[in-house]
Each structure stands twice: as C-alpha cells, then as structure tokens.
C-alpha cells in the first residue's frame, strides 16, 4: 500500500530504528521523568501503563499514537443545543458528525484494515455519531466483543453523555474497556436546562429542569461507579460563554472529587451553517484566551487535557489528522487483507518506548538550564509550532492545518492547546486572506516555529510582531522552545523585543480538509 504514514515523516529526520541523539546529562534531576507535564512522575505505574499509548488520555502519547473511531452508534437519547445530527457534510469535522454509518461487522473489517496500514494505531473508540450506549448499546457491545477476539492488543474506549451509563458499568468492566469519556457540561440543572432541551429516559421524553436533573444524577452515578471500579474516566465539557463558562469551575471540582482522571474543556463550535440551536441563535464560542484562562484556573483540579481536537465520530489517524477517507467500506473491500499481522505495531511501540525515556531527560535538562540562566521568576510566553507529530518541528508553515501552542518559561515548555488554520500555501501560491487568518489564530504567540517558511509570510509575521523561527527545523519542540525562550527573555530585558502579554487569538472551526477523490 502506498498510503502508509511514512515513519520518517513522523519521526522527523530519524529512521525507525535509529537511536535518538543522546541528550546532555540532566543537571539537578536524576529521574528520567521529573518535571514532565504528562510523564509517569505524576501518576501511579498502573495508570501510566493504561494511558501511555493513548493519544486522547496522554498529551505525550498524542504525538506518537493514532486512534480510530468507528461510527456504529447513530442513535442518541438526548438532544444538546450544540448538536444537529441531521447535518453531515464530508468537509466538516466536529463531534457528532460522520460520513458512513457502519454495522459492527463492517466496523471490524475496517479496524483490521487500518491496523495493518497504520502501525501507530493503539486505540479503538466508539464515540457515536449518537451516543455509544443509547438504544441499549447493542452495536457498541457487539463491536467490542468481536474486536476482543480478533485484535486483543488494541485498547478499547467509548464516549457517552452518561444517561445510560449506570446500566452498562458491568459490560464496561467485563470487556476491559479501561477508558471512558463522559460529556458533562453542568452539575446544576438550572444551568443544564439551557443546554439540553430534552432527554429520553424510562420510556419518556423529559424536558426543562426535570431532564437536566435526571441527566446530572445519572452522570454522577455512572462516574462514581466507573472510578470505584478503577476505570479511567475523562470528562469532556463544552465551554459555552454566558451559559456554563463560570460554572465549569464547579464542574471541575465535582468531577475531580469523584475521581475523574482528566478534564477536557473544549470550546463550543458554533456556526449558523451547522443548523444547531446555538448556531442559529447566535450563541458565540469562546476566544483562545478565554478558553486558556478557564483551563488555567481549573489546572489545580482534575488533570486538564488541552490537546483535544474535537474530532469526528469516524476519525482515523493521529490527533489533528483524519485519514478516514482512505478507509471507506468500498476501499477496504478492494484491499487484500489476508492474514492479520501485528508485528509492525509491536515494532513501532518498542521504538517509542526507547525514545520516550531519553526525551524525559532532555526536556528536564533544557528546563534546568533556563532556570539557571534566568531564575525562576521570569514570565512565560506562548509560541506556536508547526508539526506533523513525533514532538518535532517538522511542518512547513504554509502546509500547517493547525499550530500547536506551548507555554514556555522557567517551569518548562508545556503544551497548552492548538489552533486550527487554513493551509496558507495551496498549490504553490500563498493566499493573503489565509495568512491573515493564521496571524489572527496565533496572535497571542511571541513566535512561530516552523521547518520552513517563505519570504512573504515571514515578513507579514514579523510586521505583526510574531517572530518566524526556522532555525530549529526538525528539532524537538520542547528543547527548542526553551532554548528560544532563554534568548527571548534576555532580549526582552534589554528592550529589543516587545512583550505580547494581553493579546488574544481567534478559535476557528476546522476548515474543509483536502479530500482525495
């Protein structure tokens, strides 16, 4: 097959088996993981074992591993004001949307085909397009049952709104589904009534406060049952300005006290063209800094996830990319899938394991160097990064469909979010409107790190006060960002650059993907 993700592309310059350059010895920290934002240091060994290869649960793993959602669950049991499942355009990317609904049998065929083609695949999830546990969760159960027989090395996970969750806890335990995501947007029915117009529960449609009250109680019951069974629970919350933005701090406390492992606060995606209640009624989504401010405030609560890409219910690939188009049922049937072989996946996982230990030490060394030079009190900055994965700066500015944003300072370089953009460079020509949008999307960043960039966009970025940096091409993101920060802080102290503190940026829905015919 010619469409395999090139591992060289993912790894930057390295070859699959080539050892990574040995970093300088870490000073003042002998542990390979100390200070890492998402490494084993801040979690127990059992938890780390569960999350280390799961792109949605571990920020670090999301640079290396791919997930696949299978759309076997179209039915839903609640209505949300941010969702309209009638609308399905193949150019659109957001939760609840899917191009092809699959039977459990078709789903298994598709999973095995993708597993052969993409060695980074580690996780199979069922996220809808409705609710994975609605309508008795029949298709979800069947799919996981088959999968456990055919490809037991793949991790299973599912997403749900929680309404039917308490009825399925035993099934989740029995099938070793050790990751469950619950979307919880409120812990107060007064808030909930503005988000959920109705739910279907116990053979009845409930509306208003009653609906929100039942949903809330069921969500908490399900969350508690899962965490007491030691199943990792991620809570997703949609940030809706004016409705639950302040309230999400209470949600954060409530889910943390019930043992949620991760809290993922996502921005509302709102556009009249989506036909959702919020979209049609002019409800806006948050800005990048509003989202970040809320996430920062919740940081002390449940561990916060910031790398979510709000992907489609049939997404395939690394987070931030979607190769679902290569694996439609028609195309799978045309593939030759004789024999099932997991050796490529095993080899890839061994390679990542090796690279990972060295990375933890290198990051800590770079951080210690910053503290030694500048002290611990310097204010951090944001930088935007063009990357294809592998934790490296390995994407051309004009080809980036998103920029990852890192907060860099004496505490290290921390991934804090991503910004979607249109590709600036299409068919060799730069598009000026697209460039303006890119600048708006990263306007709160001091610099943008790229593998390569043309002269024109370089000048426009510089004029806008964002430093285009290509001197770290193909290097690791975090070490490069810290090296840059050291220099930046010195220049700032001398007055040769101006601080961008207080700037804000625009959050954009994903633009149409270039779909191959």
């Amino acid at each position: 097959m010619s469409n395999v993700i090139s591992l060289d592309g993912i790894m930057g310059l390295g070859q699959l088996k080539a050892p990574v350059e040995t970093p300088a010895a870490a000073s003042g920290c002998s542990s390979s993981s100390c200070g890492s934002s998402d490494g084993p240091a801040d979690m127990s060994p059992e938890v780390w074992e569960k999350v280390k290869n799961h792109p949605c649960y571990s920020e670090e793993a999301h640079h290396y591993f791919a997930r696949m959602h299978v759309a076997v669950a179209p039915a839903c049991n609640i209505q949300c004001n941010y969702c309209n499942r009638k609308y399905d355009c193949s150019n659109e990317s957001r939760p609840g949307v899917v191009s092809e609904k699959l039977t459990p049998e078709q789903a298994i065929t598709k999973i095995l085909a993708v597993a052969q083609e993409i060695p980074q695949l580690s996780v199979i999830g069922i996220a809808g397009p409705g609710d994975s546990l609605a309508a008795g969760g029949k298709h979800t159960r069947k799919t996981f049952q088959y999968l456990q027989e055919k490809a037991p090395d793949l991790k299973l996970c599912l997403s749900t709104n929680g309404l039917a969750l308490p009825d399925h806890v035993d099934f989740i335990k029995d099938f070793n589904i050790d990751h469950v995501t619950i979307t919880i947007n409120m812990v107060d029915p007064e808030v909930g009534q503005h988000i959920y117009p109705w739910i279907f529960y116990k053979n009845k449609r409930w509306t208003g406060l009653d609906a929100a009250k039942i949903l809330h109680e069921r969500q908490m019951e399900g969350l508690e049952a899962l965490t007491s069974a030691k199943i990792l629970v991620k809570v997703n919350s949609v940030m809706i300005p004016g409705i639950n933005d302040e309230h999400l701090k209470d949600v954060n406390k409530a889910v943390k006290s019930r043992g949620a492992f991760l809290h993922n606060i996502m921005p509302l995606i709102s556009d009249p063209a989506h036909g959702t209640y919020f979209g049609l009624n002019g409800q806006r989504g948050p800005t990048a800094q509003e989202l970040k401010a809320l996430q920062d405030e919740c940081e002390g609560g449940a561990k916060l996830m910031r790398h979510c890409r709000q992907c489609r219910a049939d997404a395939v690939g690394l987070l931030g990319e979607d190769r679902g188009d290569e694996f439609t049922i028609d195309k799978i049937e045309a593939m030759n899938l004789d024999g099932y072989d997991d050796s490529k996946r095993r080899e890839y996982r061994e390679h990542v394991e090796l690279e990972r230990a060295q990375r933890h030490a290198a990051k800590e060394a770079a951080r210690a160097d910053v503290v030694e030079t500048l002290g611990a009190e310097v204010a951090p900055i944001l930088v935007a990064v063009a990357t294809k994965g592998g934790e490296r700066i390995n994407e051309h500015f004009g080809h980036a469909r998103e920029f990852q944003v890192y907060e860099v300072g004496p505490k290290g370089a921390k991934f804090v979010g991503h910004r979607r953009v249109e590709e600036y460079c299409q068919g060799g020509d730069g598009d000026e409107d697209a460039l303006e949008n890119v600048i708006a999307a990263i306007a709160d960043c001091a610099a943008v790190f790229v593998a390569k960039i043309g002269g024109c966009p370089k000048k426009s970025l510089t004029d806008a006060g964002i430093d285009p940096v290509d001197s770290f091409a193909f290097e690791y993101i975090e070490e490069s960002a810290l090296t840059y920060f050291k220099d930046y802080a010195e220049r700032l102290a001398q007055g040769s650059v101006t601080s961008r503190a207080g700037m804000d940026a625009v959050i954009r829905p994903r633009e149409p993907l270039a779909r191959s015919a």
Partner: protein
Amino acid sequence: MAYKIVASDCTACGACEAECPSNAINFKKGTYVIDPTKCTECEGSFDSQQCAAVCPADCCVPA
C-alpha cells in the same frame, strides 16, 4: 391507528427501532419505516409514542 416516519427528515439513526414495543419499525431502503398493521401507537404499553419521544429529528408523526 398508526404512526409513520417522514422519510425526508429521517436520519436513519435507529433510535426508534430500539424503543418500539411492537417491533413495528424496520430499516428499508435507506430509511426506517413503521408497519401500520403492527403499530399500536403504544396504547397499553406506554403513555407516549416511543418513536416520537426518542426521535432526534421529530419525524415520527400520526399517519
């Protein structure tokens, strides 16, 4: 006495099929349809028509 599904609005999610107490709903040619000879409008089973109550597109209506 029966309900029907407005095919142009149906998203084929199947939520109704799972709820119908009379097994009157089947998937045919890209959409769900209600067999009027089996549909009881849930009389004797539930207070409300289950298909209409669960349908996200509100397309289960009296025939």
